[in-house]
């Protein structure tokens, strides 16, 4: 609790007013208490209770009023039986006004929130600022996303209740030419909300559009549905001042659509969830050895041979659609075609087209001799045609995503045994005493092709998964630290990151022991063990704070990424797997809150309450999110810890 106070710093000018308000509150509370405990009111209370006692009136049982009301006591909302004398306070309203702000992820800067609320309706919200060009489209889209999110809070009710005349939003963007997200894009924003007479005025100030859209997101979190007032109404805080910017510039979520296909509509829902949590990189692991659903413009055979079915393909238009959908939500799309391993189905048409084997070990049995999980497949690095195909795919991806700053090359889990046994070696191909060198050469050539595909310039950040190649001596031999970013996925205790940081590499962290959201569902094959049990609870996702341990050159940690591999997930459970755990991750990379030394179970009580509010928000926006606990615990904050 102490930490919390430190966090909300009130501007000095407001102090006097706040003291006065505090005093008035005190007087009010005293008055209410006196009223409640006066013997007379107590008596009348009983009498009304008696009259209304449904026990004596069993007929009126079909529709019962909500019996609960909440009172804020010691910064906690306490559930009480409604007694009809007090004003009725819904849980949402109580939470919004009770000690803890319900913002997620928690802002990193100054936050000052009003303690009074007003009602309004969706159609009162107007965007006052005008922009031109590309920015206009972006801001308008972000505004309508915001408005839609607010409308969704109302559910089916059509509330017409309002205390104000208008709800005006002004957006102030300094760099009007920034319409793409980059590593150095300023995502900070400030949000001011005040009531001027009968108008509610919001001012969002940001350097770029990407900050401004975060401002909209935060504004949506100052708004909630109060089911008790006037039979249901939208409410907003009467005043707020928030300054905010992220701790890390790379806040990613990886989704695998190759083990199981995820339809475009579901991917969009993932993006909606990411936007709500201010995540900004959608890392799309679009292909793997199992399937190749990426419909390449230049190499259409890939998906013909690699997709699970004709309806399980991402067409160029789908990808453009997703990229656009992501952009207005402040998210960039990074497509990964994993190579040279994790590539099989989709690469098996070479011989029939006279290009030779583009991949080897494809669907080879017994698979355990050639790969880490069935089916096998690995690119053929000694066939020059392989690189031609790669270059075409790279070109497709850059064209479709318009992403030329980050490129993901894949590069994990190469099985040298596959190459050693299945490549057709001869004097032309040369012989390798250490096949890591072949892997290294493959990577160098792939980077060359990437450079060509990108108009002669290598993307500034080429990401590769950590692997044997990102270990000495191969790192320095094949991976130029000026271009290559390593996405570290081994468990923290492997210490992969420590060495790489020391050598000056930039990292993205995706530690399997904390941020792999697919783990915990047992083995999916008849034989063998589960890949990475147990399940990572949201608490363990949240508590993972690896940069504390990694030591030197911490500024080279670009950020983190939570990963959802899809061996045991498809459209039916992808959302429940992600939320609210990916939200827990999002606060870690946005705010990186310190651990609360006083919290008995590691995660502070306030985090439970806020995350639960965020979960409700996600559900209101049509997402599926796992339950965090029995609902009783939501209704009785702090009582389940």
């Amino acid at each position, binding site marked *: 609790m102490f930490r919390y106070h430190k966090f909300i710093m009130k501007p000095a000018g407001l102090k006097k007013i706040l003291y006065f308000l505090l005093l008035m509150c005190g007087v009010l509370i005293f008055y209410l208490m006196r009223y409640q405990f006066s013997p007379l009111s107590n008596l009348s209370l009983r009498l009304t209770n008696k009259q209304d006692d449904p026990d004596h009136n069993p007929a009126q049982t079909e529709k019962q009023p909500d019996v609960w009301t909440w009172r804020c006591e010691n910064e906690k909302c306490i559930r009480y039986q409604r007694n009809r004398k007090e004003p009725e306070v819904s849980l949402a309203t109580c939470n919004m006004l009770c000690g803890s702000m319900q913002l997620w992820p928690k802002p990193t800067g100054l936050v000052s929130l009003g303690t009074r609320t007003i009602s309004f309706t969706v159609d009162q919200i107007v965007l006052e600022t005008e922009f031109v060009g590309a920015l206009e489209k972006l801001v308008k889209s972000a505004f309508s996303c915001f408005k839609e999110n607010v409308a969704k809070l109302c559910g089916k009710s059509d509330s017409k209740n309002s205390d104000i005349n208008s709800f005006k939003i002004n957006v102030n963007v300094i760099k009007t030419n920034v319409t793409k997200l980059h590593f150095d894009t300023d995502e900070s924003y400030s949000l001011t909300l005040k009531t001027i007479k009968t108008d509610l005025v919001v001012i969002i100030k940001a350097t770029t559009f990407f900050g401004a859209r975060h401002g909209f997101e935060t504004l949506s979190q100052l708004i909630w549905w109060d089911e008790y007032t006037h039979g249901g109404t939208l409410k907003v805080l009467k005043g707020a001042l928030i300054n905010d910017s992220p701790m890390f510039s790379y806040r990613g979520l990886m989704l695998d659509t190759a083990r199981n296909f995820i339809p475009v509509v579901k991917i969009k829902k993932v993006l909606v969830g990411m936007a709500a949590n201010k995540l900004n990189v959608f890392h799309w692991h679009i292909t793997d050895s199992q399937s190749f659903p990426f419909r390449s413009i230049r190499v259409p055979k890939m998906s013909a041979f690699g997709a699970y079915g004709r309806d399980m393909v991402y067409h160029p238009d789908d990808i453009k659609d997703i990229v656009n959908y992501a952009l207005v939500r402040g998210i960039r799309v990074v497509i990964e075609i994993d190579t040279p391993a994790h590539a099989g189905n989709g690469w098996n048409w070479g011989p029939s087209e006279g290009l030779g084997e583009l991949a080897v070990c494809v669907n080879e049995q017994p698979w355990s001799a050639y790969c880490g999980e069935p089916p096998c497949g690995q690119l053929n690095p000694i066939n020059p045609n392989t690189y031609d195909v790669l270059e075409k795919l790279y070109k497709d991806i850059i064209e479709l995503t318009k992403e030329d700053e980050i490129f993901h090359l894949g590069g994990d889990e190469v099985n040298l045994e596959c190459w050693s046994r299945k490549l057709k070696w001869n004097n032309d191909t040369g012989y390798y005493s250490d096949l890591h060198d072949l892997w290294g050469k493959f990577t160098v050539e792939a980077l060359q092709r990437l450079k060509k595909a990108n108009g002669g310039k290598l993307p500034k950040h080429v990401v590769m998964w950590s692997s044997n190649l990102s270990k000495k001596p191969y790192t320095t031999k094949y991976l130029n630290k000026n271009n290559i970013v390593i996405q570290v996925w081994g468990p923290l205790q492997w210490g992969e990151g420590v060495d790489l940081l020391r050598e000056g590499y930039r990292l993205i962290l995706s530690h399997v022991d904390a941020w792999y959201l697919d783990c915990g569902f047992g083995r999916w094959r008849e034989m063998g063990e589960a890949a990475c049990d147990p399940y990572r609870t949201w608490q363990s996702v949240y508590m993972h704070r690896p940069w504390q341990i990694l030591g030197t050159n911490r500024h080279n940690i670009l950020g983190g990424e939570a990963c959802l591999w899809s061996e045991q997930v498809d459209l*039916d*459970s992808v959302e429940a797997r992600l939320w609210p755990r990916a939200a827990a991750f999002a606060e870690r990379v946005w705010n990186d809150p310190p651990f609360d030394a006083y919290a008995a179970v590691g995660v502070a009580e306030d985090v439970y309450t806020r995350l639960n509010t965020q979960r409700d928000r996600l559900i209101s926006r049509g997402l599926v999110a796992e339950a965090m606990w029995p609902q*009783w615990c939501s209704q009785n904050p702090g009582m389940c810890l």
Partner: protein
Amino acid sequence: MIQKSYKLPCSMQLLLIIVTVFIGKSTCSSSNEDGWRWLWTCDVRTEKCHRKPEPVSIEKSFEFVEPLQHASLAACRLICGRYGALWPKPSGQTIITRQLLPFHPNAIKFQISNTNDQTKQYLIENTQIFHNNLLSECGSNCSSVFNTQVTIFLFPSSSEFTLRWDTNETYHLELVSKGNQVSVEILADNVFGVRHGLETLLQLIASYPVYHKHEGVSHGLAIVSGARIHDKPFYRHRGLLLDTARNYLPVDAIKRQIDAMAASKLNVLHWHATDSQSFPLVLPRLPQMAKYGAYSSVKVYHPNDMRDLIRYAKLRGVRVILEIDAPSHAGNGWQWGEQAGLGNLAVCINKMPWRYYCIQPPCGQLNPINRHLYTVLSQLYQDVIDIFDEKETFHMGGDEVHLGCWNSTDEIINYLNYHGRNRTTEDFLQLWGEYQANALNAYDALVGHKNTQIIMWSSALTDVNIISRYLPKDRYIIQTWVPSNDNISELLLQLGYQIILSTKDAWYLDHGFWGTTQYHGWRISYSNRLPKHENVLGGEVCMWGELVDENSLDNRIWPRAAAAAERLWSNPDTGTAKAEQRLYRHRERLVSRGIQAEALAPRYCYQNEGECS
């Protein structure tokens, strides 16, 4: 466009091909790289369907179809292996021919015979369910028309209309075809057996895509051309527990579970309706229970909701057994006693720090020494009996009584002191035993006899050394929830108790998400063998609701509960390797019926059977 089926003699079997012949002028179309499709063949020896290594172009597939190829995995699965696509696999004779006949879901006629109005109505409604399921299976654009006609005869031989442990669920299905006439006979003792037969018949049907040059893809259905199946369940009690107290589950979400249960031939929905967290049942005699106990006025079950669910379930061969857990796991909903002048009906309600008074927040335990409690229980039971069938069994809970709660309640301590009783564990067990005897008496008084069998969880009270003192075996069935290496079930059987098993380390579906528990995958669920003993009524998978609400209910339960369903229905001697392909198929079936069942493996493994072991 014409669909034809040919009979091809191939070695000793008749194998089918669905040939799609495209008529019309073969216009020269630009080469379209998206025009590819997969074909499947059945390897008779390994009983696996294989995806052909390379896709064929759609145009090519119009002109040229090799024998033994199927346009969908589901169609191949129907005829591949002795048990084809059946789940759970039948326990008796099972013969399925290898030929498929295409038909349209509307080309089905039903003949219902030998029944009274009640059972006839039941079967008519079931034919509607059958038809809806067929349409779900066919999928979108189910527009291919064929001239096959399917006639289904339903023969229940008795008018038995109650689902009990002794209900005969046996059925016999005979499917024959002559030319384009398919005739199916389902014979059973009663409508519940017939219903199982219809469920099996659905599993002899699969959809496959039909490619039209100009209109694109539509879907058609294929049915096996011949089948003979004798089938009956191994265990009588095949249950799924749903917990609507930790988190409320909307009626529709519960109905979805019943749909999936029906598809898997599970027959008991164990409704753990209340707990210390909430009391969502609106009871006519005791409206305070929901008023004080529900999360909100909409998160409740009205009597009509309950009746609706019971009816919905019965129509799908599922009985609903209600559990009102007591004396522990009872708190919210019981707070109103004092105000109503009845004293504390429950104690320790929401008491903190909870760790001293219960095993999970919020605390709460009934107050066994308050005689008003039994009056209230009596009213509660009367409502239960009114809404549920009087002849239906009732689950009285009885797990995890926290003696520390009672032992810290002055009222109870004073009572024990006053009566010269001590406060040892035995004393509190005796108190619990007295509570249980009073509760049972209250129930018996309402139904007017002492024949109702009551289910109780295994607990300290069911310890083999004391159980007979408190829970006579002619009255109580014990539901054990211990790990598989615990011998309490065997010991209870030796004492002559009837039992239901909910093996904790296999059938607790909430495990793996809290504490040190582990997730039990479908293979573990499938491999959980129960003792073979006439007093083993069966088993139940349990979906406790602490970390589950309607958002993830489906994928937490399915298809793992279906894996348990085959264990309970056919109790196979074979292992999971033999079951894998059929379960993958069953999972797809559940998904097509709107149940969001979890994916079990990469789709590659579905499409390439046996390649991912």
